[in-house]
């Protein structure tokens, strides 16, 4: 799944969801930084993570509530630099979500694909 044409491959894992907004943005801006360093970057959303990709949520929450940028800003900063977003079906089920309730551009993978990405990444960083 890695294109393999970059010097470094970094896989971030986000397990936290909308109930903990202070943890929602950091994986996106670290991923954006890695992409700006010409790394190939993916973020895998599991456990409660997929809730952060809900279309009806990304304008309503942000890491600092009303004071700062909404979650959409951090997501678009990352995806605009080429960061890819991944979910798996069991974690959609856990949160009673369907793929069409998430923002566009999210890819579905499974456990084997995740483990393969992790085994072939240069770094896996989990939140």
């Amino acid at each position, binding site marked *: 799944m890695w294109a393999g044409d970059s*010097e*470094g491959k970094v896989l971030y894992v986000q397990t936290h969801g909308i109930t903990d907004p202070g943890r929602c943005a950091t994986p996106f*801006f*670290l991923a*954006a*930084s890695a992409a*700006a*360093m*010409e*790394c190939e970057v993916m973020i895998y959303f599991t456990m409660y993570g997929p809730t952060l990709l809900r279309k009806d949520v990304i304008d309503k929450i942000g890491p600092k509530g009303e004071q700062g940028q909404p979650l959409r800003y951090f997501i678009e*900063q990352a995806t605009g*630099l080429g960061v890819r977003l991944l979910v798996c079906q069991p974690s959609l089920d856990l949160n009673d979500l369907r793929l069409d309730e998430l923002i566009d551009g999210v890819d579905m993978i499974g456990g084997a694909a995740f483990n393969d990405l992790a085994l072939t990444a240069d770094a896996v960083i989990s939140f």
Partner: protein
Amino acid sequence: MAESPGPAADQVLDCTGLQCPLPVIKTAQAVKAIEVGQVLELLATDPGVEPDMRAWSGRTGNDLLGITRQGEVFHVLIRRAR
């Protein structure tokens, strides 16, 4: 303000007041927009800019020509190498 040492910049990118990761992201975009061999001067007040730009330059293979600090503002000179 004193003149910054080193070669004259072909382009200046003002990131003063912006926090991590914006100086890195905007620098990456600005360096792609200049020609190979040209120099970008980044102005930034984020206190992490020095280690960040050393890491970014090393990782991307561009030349970090120097970092100076004048008051609160870091001046970072980067030559696009590839």
